[in-house]
């Protein structure tokens, strides 16, 4: 009896995560989707955003999010992957033991601190070096690139370490150098883990809000160069939610719905790729 009750109790508890996920989906979609249909897809997928006047075009923000995310990947993926390879293959265990928690510490630093460092250091730097206001796609890409490092380093490190030792030995026995082994044996074997790392990093970059608000400039237009200011889906939500009401608020939930769909798709891809290993 006691066993049965406790098992059922734990079973119910264990559904908390999936139930939360469902609640999030239902509540955000229930706010956002009716507005998308009421305003019409044509209105919603235009570039004119004036939500208090009935214009709900989010295309410039979607493009903004994509630019910033792509930039973050260009900065973060090579750096993160290099770091993971160095840790997993080229450094002795003692150094790995010191460096891994240090890199994980990067994940613990609050995103507002990254945004702040962006404002006080990178924005003036970009302004002085390249001109413009400094609040730009470039600045955001640099900061987000750093922010996604821990995700990319840890997951690719784990998948590199998981490659069986015999693969390496086989390759060395054929006379390959360490670097050749990394390129031709380890990368292909750890491919799915590395791809999952990049996709999860992408999800973090798209979803990041506070840091981006502080450094992206938030101008509502499609950027024409990497020095132009940019506004992402997330910054629009955070900037306007506080004072919005009526359809305007619903429109922000519509933005949230689109963001949520993108994130869930990325997550599912990452989970499926990760599970294949």
């Amino acid at each position, binding site marked *: 009896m*006691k*066993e049965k009750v406790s*098992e059922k*109790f*734990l*079973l119910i*508890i*264990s559904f*908390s*995560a*999936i*139930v939360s*996920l469902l*609640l*999030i989906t239902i*509540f*955000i979609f229930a706010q956002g989707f009716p507005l998308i249909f009421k305003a019409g897809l044509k209105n919603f997928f235009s570039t004119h955003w004036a939500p208090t006047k009935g214009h709900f075009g989010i295309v410039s923000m979607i493009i903004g999010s994509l630019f910033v995310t792509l930039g973050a990947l260009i900065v973060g993926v090579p*750096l993160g992957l*290099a*770091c993971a*390879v*160095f*840790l997993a293959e*080229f450094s002795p265990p003692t150094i790995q033991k010191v*460096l891994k*928690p*240090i*890199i994980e510490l*990067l994940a*613990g*630093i*609050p*995103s*507002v*601190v990254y*945004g*702040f*460092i962006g404002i006080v250091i990178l924005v003036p730097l970009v302004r002085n070096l390249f001109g413009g206001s400094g609040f730009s796609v470039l600045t955001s890409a640099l900061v987000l690139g750093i922010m996604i490092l821990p995700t990319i*380093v840890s997951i690719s490190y784990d998948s590199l370490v998981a490659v069986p030792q015999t693969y390496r030995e086989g390759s060395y026995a054929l006379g*390959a*150098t*360490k*670097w*050749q082994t*990394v390129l031709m044996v380890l990368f292909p074997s750890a491919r799915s883990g590395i791809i999952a790392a990049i996709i999860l990093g992408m999800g973090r970059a798209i*979803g990041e*809000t*506070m840091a981006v608000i502080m450094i992206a400039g938030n101008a509502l237009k499609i950027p024409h160069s990497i020095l132009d200011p940019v506004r992402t889906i*997330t910054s629009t*939500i*955070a900037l306007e*939610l506080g004072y919005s009401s009526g359809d305007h608020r619903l429109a*922000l*939930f519509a933005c*949230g719905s689109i*963001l*949520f769909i993108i*994130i869930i798709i990325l*997550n599912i891809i990452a*989970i499926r790729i990760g599970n294949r290993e």
Partner: protein
Amino acid sequence: MTFRIGPRTSQIIAYTFLLACTIIVIAILLFIIGFIFKNGFGKLSWNFLTENTKAMGKEGGIFPSIIGTLLVTFVAIIIAAPLGIGSALYLTEYTKGGWIRRIISFGADCLAGVPSIIFGLFGFIFFVITLKLGWSILSGGLTLAVMILPTIIRTSEEAIKAVPRAYREISYSLGVGKIDTIIRIVLPTAFPGIATGIILGIGRAVSETAAVIFTAGSSLNIPTSLLSSTRTLAVHFYILAREGISMPNAYGTATVLIIIILLINFIAYRLMHRFIARYY
């Protein structure tokens, strides 16, 4: 004629490149921490920590935000820890694969990837508006609880999995039932690992901004109940920095935040390592 780099040369070039990248990453981290400390450490004083905030943060200390952070984080942990540990127990002790396990894992994995602004939107519409909790410590704590749930599930799961099979079998052989074995043997043995998960959850809660600013609000009053609005340290720092209210106070607040995060990571790391040394 093609120029070919020999395998040894390319090995040396690659090694240098990888080393340089790693040094850059470490340097960035040290720079961020060093820069905040250099500008903010001088601001730290007993008064800064214990005085009320005056003139929207231009003057005075950060006491209300410290209280706000503590309370919101406390609510989040009180709710997320039992749910997370319970989920982990069910996953490790009761399921042997199958669709239930897949669904629970999928929920945890997906939730882990959801960005904080989505939690903010959800908390705002669900806790603040639908459940009528308003901008409050409770709404903020509940929202954060949902956010840190996957961290606690995953870490506890690893910790419980690491408890040797033999411990359970000895307990069963003495005639102890499954749930009593879990409570008396498995949980205490896995405790350091579970604690690591909770501490990492605290870390996420403390450093969060987007999910709390729309659920706990940004009031600077000392809270009188769980339904009072409050402002956490991260939110306070965000407002100080973004609205340019006071740079010295922004640096001071950031220093406090970074110190908390460093402590949390250090404790989590130590706990985990002691645990790993014992059971892996």
